[in-house]
């Protein structure tokens, strides 16, 4: 909730600041429009907003994980670390009460820690020491070193002067002191607002992981091998899907018999999400490369067939008539009119198919694989290696985005007439 509130606050504040600080220097046609609200063509992404948006995400990520990349004053309050102290008041047989101090050293999990040293103090209740990891909690048996133990009816009746009973708790400046039903104290140091690295590691930890895995690999394969395998499966599966799907789509667009024969199959397979095929493909082909490629082949096949079919149906009849009147044969019509005319549709289909294949391969690797981006994050999650999981997600996103950019670029160079007819 706090994060969302901060996010919204940054959104509004940066909008206001940019609005007043940056005067529109552009003098294009849009800047002369008087009606812009409601005119969709006048809405272009504000690049300043995009940059601030990305920075905000990293800033929030860094601030709430105590990242070293974010200046210290911007950090959200972290967990308490160091020596925490509180006093307890105990009672024993004979009606005497006595005070003693507990010193708890709160340390960063994963580092060496030494017991703090304190003088035992006077009275029959002696001062105690203990250690607790940050974000953890620990039982503290304060009666153990006291002269009157449980056999003498040792009971803690107050912490820092505040009365406490079994099941109750007292907040101190260092954290919460609770009492179990049996009367044992436990200490839970203040957690602050930051995320524990096991939930969300700071950006530099993820970055360091990228470096480490790129150098040393993970699970017997380097990072590039994992990503390369995923990409390889997508490219091969898509290639065969297109190789079969496009001619199939053409046949369906040109012949009654083909249309009739394959319509039910294509229309049935189209709404089946490729993810639903994973179990069957594993049963039939195992978890190796063949199974993955069959799955991606099937994912791409229907999309490409439908794209090619609608590319053929989309040809203006006047173009077909014109070609025949100019003396073209059926084969020439196919080669010079039908195929080029269907290219824009095929490219749209290819973009969709590539996106679906990429999503499907990651999902399939999550289920079962020996190598691949999905397998990497799945295995890492089992060992609570959150930094690898986050790294994997970011890389999968970047590659998916890269594929789409590449397809768009190819579309622009190969079918420049798209949308301009």
């Amino acid at each position: 909730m706090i994060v969302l509130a901060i996010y919204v606050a940054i959104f509004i504040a940066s909008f206001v600041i940019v609005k007043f600080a940056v005067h529109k220097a552009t003098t294009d046609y849009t800047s002369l429009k008087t009606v812009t609200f409601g005119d969709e063509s006048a809405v272009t992404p504000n690049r300043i907003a995009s940059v601030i948006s990305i920075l905000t995400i990293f800033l929030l990520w860094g601030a709430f994980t105590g990242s070293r990349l974010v200046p210290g004053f911007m950090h959200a309050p972290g967990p308490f670390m160091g020596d925490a102290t509180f006093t307890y008041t105990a009672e024993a047989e004979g009606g005497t009460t006595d005070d003693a101090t507990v010193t708890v050293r709160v340390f960063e999990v994963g580092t060496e820690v030494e017991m703090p040293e304190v003088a035992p103090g006077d009275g029959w209740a002696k001062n105690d020491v203990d250690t607790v990891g940050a974000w953890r909690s620990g039982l503290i048996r304060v009666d153990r070193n006291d002269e009157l133990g449980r056999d003498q009816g040792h009971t803690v009746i107050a912490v820092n002067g505040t009365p406490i009973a079994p099941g109750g708790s007292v907040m101190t400046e260092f954290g919460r002191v609770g009492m179990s039903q049996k009367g044992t104290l436990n200490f839970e140091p203040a957690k602050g607002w930051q995320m524990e690295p096991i939930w969300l590691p700071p950006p530099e930890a993820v970055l360091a992981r990228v470096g480490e895995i790129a150098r040393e690999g993970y699970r017997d394969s380097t990072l590039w091998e994992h990503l390369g395998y995923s990409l390889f499966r997508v490219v091969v599966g898509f290639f065969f899907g297109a190789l079969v799907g496009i001619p199939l789509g053409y046949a369906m667009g040109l012949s009654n018999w083909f249309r009739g024969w394959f319509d039910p199959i294509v229309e049935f397979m189209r709404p089946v999400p490729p993810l639903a095929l994973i179990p069957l493909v594993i049963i039939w082909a195992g978890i190796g490369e063949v199974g993955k490629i069959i799955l991606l082949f099937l994912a791409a096949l229907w999309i490409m067939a439908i794209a090619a079919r609608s590319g053929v149906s989309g040809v203006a009849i006047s173009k077909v008539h014109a070609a025949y009147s100019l003396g073209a044969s059926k084969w020439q019509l196919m080669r010079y009119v039908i195929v080029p005319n269907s290219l824009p549709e095929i490219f749209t289909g290819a973009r969709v198919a590539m996106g679906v294949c990429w999503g499907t391969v990651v999902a399939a690797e999550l289920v079962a694989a020996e190598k691949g981006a999905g397998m990497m994050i799945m295995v890492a999650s089992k060992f609570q290696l959150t930094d690898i999981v986050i790294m994997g997600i970011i890389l999968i996103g970047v590659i998916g985005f890269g594929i789409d950019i590449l397809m768009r670029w190819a579309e622009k160079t190969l079918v420049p007439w798209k949308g301009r007819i």
Partner: protein
Amino acid sequence: MSGLSIENLSMRFDLPNGTSVQALKDVTLSIKEGEIMSVLGPSGCGKTTLLNIVAGFLAPTDGQVVMNGHRVSGPDAERGMVFQQGALFEWMSVRDNVSFGPRMAGQRERDWAGNVDHLLDVVGLRDFKEKAVYELSGGMQQRVALARCLANDPDVILMDEPLGALDALTREKMQSLVLRLWKETGKTIILITHSVEEALLLGERLLVMAPRPGRIHREYNLPFADLGVGQDLREVKKHPDFALRREEILGMIWDMEEEIMGRQEQSA
């Protein structure tokens, strides 16, 4: 026998709901070689259907079209077509569009290059030959379509409202171009239009068709096409007969339109 003859042509469309439309009934007509004929009539009177049958895209339910002594049974390079919206191939440059016919016929580049360049000159697109067709204006696209048709050297050129989508000024220039090409190439031309002025200007013969069923209503022989060759078409329009004919034909078409409206009101 050269030229084109249309013999007792009838066309009935059977609609899926069981009714049928008699688009053409018993149309007979012959066109001499080198003649330019314009066809006029209220919309829905079967003009496009007639042209599609002549082009060979549709088979008539009755009658036949005979061309150069043989019966028309499908599209052929001897009958070229110019459509309302160019129907150009966007994936080819202007030059590739124009040379499409010769290339499909298997001619080598050195055999067609001269003629194609000449035609591009004639239609004023010499500087645009490497351009993509979607970069051209509507009038320029229509000129590409004309050049493409001529490059294939057909005996008859069929045009279905070829200038209908152009603005008035461009249209006037294109009308002059069509007349010039007609005189220079000596092609037989059938041109459908819904503009009475255009029909008068571009028709040595003018055919007025009537709807329901589509049939020939009247035929005129006119001097304006010959007058218009090499002359400003605005001068031709000043000819006293021109205004006379225009009013006469306009009235005729008005009456037909009103009759259609009346019939629709009755049946409604």
